[in-house]
């Protein structure tokens, strides 16, 4: 009984992915299984249509910039939190995971509007950094879990300055967490829709925004081919994260 139920749920979880993959290589009539026709024409459209191409490039740009900001912010934060275990600060930092992103996005819209700062690219990166930084901090903290403060002290006694300690002791320990966190952060930024929609500008037509515009009227099958590519990118990123966790 439990088994049948679980298999039904597995089917429920797998079916949509299957639909995406099947219809993304269907060059025939719009979404009819009866006249299936194998072709890659929707994939090639991603390359030829400038809107798709721009969306992909913009999303990568925003995602990578966000990840760099997240890493720079997370290193000191994680080290500090690891030293002075502070539950309140940690909760504040991870709150963007739990609080609906529309609230955070709305706050940024008002803030940027009030101070009159209208560089949309920078605005989106700042807002995305707030949304993504929790993942990097959490993952880095978990790699620092068995970090021995005495190692740091003995290095100091041996005459290492703080930069050397950071480079030779702390960074290698944090690296797996940083990588896993970064891949999660990139995925979050890449998939983020609401904040990008609120701060929208011609320079920030990210992939989800482009997808949205192809979905709202009639669903263009190229949305499905882009979904497959996104899934592959995510799988690679998550794979990188997993691989790193295993080695340590």
């Amino acid at each position, binding site marked *: 009984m*439990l*088994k049948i*139920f*679980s298999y039904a*749920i*597995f089917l*429920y*979880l*797998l*079916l*949509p*992915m299957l*639909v*995406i993959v099947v*219809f993304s290589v269907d060059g025939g009539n719009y*979404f009819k299984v009866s006249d299936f026709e194998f072709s890659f024409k929707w994939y090639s459209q991603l390359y030829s249509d400038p809107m798709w191409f721009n969306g992909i490039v913009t999303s990568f740009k925003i995602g990578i910039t966000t990840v760099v900001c997240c890493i720079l912010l997370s290193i000191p934060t994680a080290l500090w939190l690891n030293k002075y275990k502070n*539950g309140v600060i*940690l*909760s504040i930092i991870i*709150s963007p995971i*739990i*609080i*609906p*992103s*529309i*609230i955070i996005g*709305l*706050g940024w*819209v*008002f803030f940027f509007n009030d101070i009159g700062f209208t560089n949309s690219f920078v605005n989106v990166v700042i807002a995305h950094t707030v949304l993504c930084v929790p993942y990097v901090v959490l993952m880095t903290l978990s790699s620092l879990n068995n970090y021995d403060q005495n190692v740091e002290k003995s290095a100091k006694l041996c005459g290492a300055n703080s930069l050397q300690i950071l480079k030779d002791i702390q960074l290698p320990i944090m690296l797996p967490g940083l990588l896993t966190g970064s891949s999660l952060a990139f995925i979050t930024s*890449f*998939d983020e*829709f*609401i904040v990008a*929609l*609120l701060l929208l500008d011609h320079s920030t037509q990210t*992939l*989800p925004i482009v*997808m*949205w515009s192809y*979905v*709202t009227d009639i*669903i263009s099958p190229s*949305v*499905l081919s*882009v*979904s497959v590519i*996104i*899934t592959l990118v*995510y*799988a690679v990123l*998550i794979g990188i994260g997993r691989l790193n966790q295993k080695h340590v």
Partner: protein
Amino acid sequence: MEQYLPNITHYAKNGGDRLEAIQKDLAREDSRRAITYLNHHYHKTRSMFRKGIDHPGWQDPKFWAVIEKEIKPYTFANFQRAANDLYLKVIGRTYLLSAIITIICLAIAYPLAYYLTKLKSTASKIALFIVLIPLFSSFLSRTVSWILLLQPFDLMNTITAIYIGSVYIALPLSVLPIYLAMKNVDTDLIKVSTIAGANKLQTFRFVYFPQTVKGIANSITLTFMSVTGYYITPSLLGGSKGLFVTEQIIRQVQYTLNWGLASALAVIMLSTSLLLFYVYYRINFKGDSNA
């Protein structure tokens, strides 16, 4: 003073028959006072109201800046508007739908997580991978595939479609905390209770279930909070009916440009989120200090 001003902005911003509305408003004593007041800050106000809609002053952003400034900082008018019937209904509906979705998720997640813990190591890895599969694809494509799946059954633009799509997206989030809690259940205790003569139901009720309560609580808070923030799924599968608060907020920001109302709705949403977040914090960080 500011209690009269929202009326004027309302008439002026909504276009259409605003001239008529403003003239009607002029006949009333209180708006004459409002205009006199505004005239101190923007000297063309009086002649604008006298000459009507053709006066260039109506196009002057400075005038609207004055009105915005007068209304903005000190009033609860936005909350009053948010508290009006329509928006209260939207907020209530969001929480109702989110609660139903959370309960459905929980009802699926609990037995599923139990099944996952019973599997052998390789099988359980594969099964866990299947559970997490929705997280591997973008939010939009997950919803799009449901459009394709539901269209043949004529389920599009119904509440059922919202349930199916949202449960699909929220399920991994609700399974994981329960699964983690079940992994840590002390199996020796279960053996002890069976030896002590408890039947299966009693063992579940008094030994197994209490050890998973924390996981359930985590699952509920996480799922509920993320579901209240959904925008893409309800608006694509539900046919843009504006069922969820998020849809209303985005509508207010993008089309009606009523930022005050948008933030009032967001603050109401935020207060519930913070409350739930506090619950989440208490479950996970407090009383756990010896762990």
